[in-house]
């Protein structure tokens, strides 16, 4: 019954940072930018931990990137994951390359479940999970969520949002999609990508952080895995988005109404 779960984490610019384009359009300004785990991946890690706590098993955290990506793996280990795998790759990461590498990791680890964030907040592609599922021929449950509030009793008790069947072989996924709520039942192994409100990720405790330092963190070299590492999504130029002019304040509802009704004529 024990589940072996692979969770992917990506090192990204802190979403609170102000991201600016370099004047020559060759990239973004990284001076003074902080880095952290992609917020959707934190949700994936939390969900993996809850499933393990409810049903037993192992949570393996995988990241792809330079040596600094070890920081994000350690952060997941501090939350309670069991061990980490860092696939070293200093080249550009696009969903085609990422999924090619993850296919190799999945072949090595043979998990029952692969959890990813639905998208990373740097390139905002929302593709890696779907590519991975397609390449492995596995069923996919994208944008997994739950309908209960994050203030609910189940959430307080850290009940997993993903429901494992009694036989441990199938997983129920709830997705809030356009126009309603869909429930899918996926046989394992499966790929699930995590959306907001699947759970509220825990903070690492001090003992958790201490323990994380002693947990196994294995390094693999992407170049030796046999995956095609040729970038297929290549940014030719970065641009500043057109700025929106605003900033006018009105004194009261009377003035607001006049502006909307007589000036903008939108009501």
């Amino acid at each position, binding site marked *: 019954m024990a589940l072996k779960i692979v969770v992917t984490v990506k090192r990204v610019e802190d979403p609170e940072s102000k991201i600016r384009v370099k004047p020559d359009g060759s990239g973004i300004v990284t001076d003074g930018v902080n880095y952290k785990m992609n917020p959707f991946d934190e949700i994936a890690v939390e969900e993996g931990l809850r499933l393990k706590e409810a049903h037993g098993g192992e949570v393996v955290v995988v990241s792809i990137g330079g040596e600094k990506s070890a920081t994000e793996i350690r952060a997941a280990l501090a939350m309670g994951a069991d061990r980490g795998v860092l696939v070293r790759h200093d080249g550009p990461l696009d969903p085609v390359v990422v999924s090619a590498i993850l296919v190799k990791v999945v072949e090595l680890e043979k998990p029952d479940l692969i959890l990813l964030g639905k998208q990373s907040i740097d390139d905002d592609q929302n593709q890696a999970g779907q590519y991975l599922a397609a390449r492995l021929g596995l069923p996919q449950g994208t944008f997994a969520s739950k309908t209960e509030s994050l203030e609910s009793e189940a959430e307080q008790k850290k009940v997993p949002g993903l429901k494992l069947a009694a036989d441990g072989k199938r997983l129920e996924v709830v997705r809030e999609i356009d126009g309603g709520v869909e429930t899918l039942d996926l046989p394992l192994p499966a790929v699930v990508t995590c959306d907001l409100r699947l759970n509220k990720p825990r903070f690492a405790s001090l003992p958790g952080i201490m323990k994380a330092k002693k947990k196994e963190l294995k390094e693999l070299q992407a170049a030796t895995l046999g995956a095609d590492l040729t970038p297929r999504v290549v940014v030719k130029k970065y641009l500043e*988005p057109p700025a929106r002019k605003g900033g006018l304040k009105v004194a009261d509802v009377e003035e607001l109404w006049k502006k909307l009704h007589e000036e903008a004529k939108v009501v």
Partner: protein
Amino acid sequence: MSNVLIIAEAFKGQVRRASLHAIGAGQQLAKRSGGALHVVLLGKGIAEAGKSLAATGATVHVADAEGLAAPLAETHAPVVVALAKSLGATYLGAAATAYGKDLTPRAAALLDAAMATEVTAFAGEGAAVLFRRPMWAGNVLADVELGTAVKAFTIRPTEYPQATAGAAGEVKAVAAEVPAPKTRYVSFQEVKSERPELTEARVVVAGGRGTKGDFKPLEALADALGGALGASRAAVDAGWAPNDWQVGQTGKVVAPDLYVAAGISGAIQHVAGMKGSKVIVAINKDPEAPIFQIADYGLVGDLFKVLPELLAKVKAGH
């Protein structure tokens, strides 16, 4: 010649409006590449919806089968892939809806295609199409080259016009071989609403942390204006609003005539989803809230006082 295949989407037997924008994008691409425009619609009981798309001038392929009734990427992707191969499609596109974002990358992977998500414009010169798309929550736009023979994309519906009418295109039935899915489709619970769809509404009234979970004044104003309701990530996280109300880079992108942000601070993530609105009104107790920087009209005040007063004006003004 580069043929274009657009995946349209049917919901309850009707084509979603977002798909008309995707076909509009397909028309641009077909014109630029000199290829033919094809549209595929998958589902069950969608023959009439398929016929309605022929007015766009595209060749419409209707895959109407029991096995496609559930909108599963696992079953829809192989049908799209087989069709794309038989048409020699160079471009595979869809609208960036929940269905489009679930299905298109799966189909792209099976076609060895790279993909660009939430494309806002086709840039570049001639046949060398670059896909312009937002990154970092819309802080940055990037012109992206896809280095694969087949190129896949989803478009942001607010950035493309709906398809224009053309000489009626041909409607063809797809003899789809639908594989039995591993996924069991358990249920779909429709969230019934009298309000317009968020992405299609002329007016959107959105709430954030400042609502403290009480959306009633927002609902009343939205209903008086025939608008839809939206929410910030904070409100969705708290469980005050469903995920499909979330406006932002990771949620819905909207561009209504009027966007009322009530009790929303204006995190960049949220702004990315609504800054294309024609008129933005911000109501917030905090005069320093970043939302005021992009709002056309900002009112510092308590939304529980301001919204009912505004509602009274709306009712009196009509």
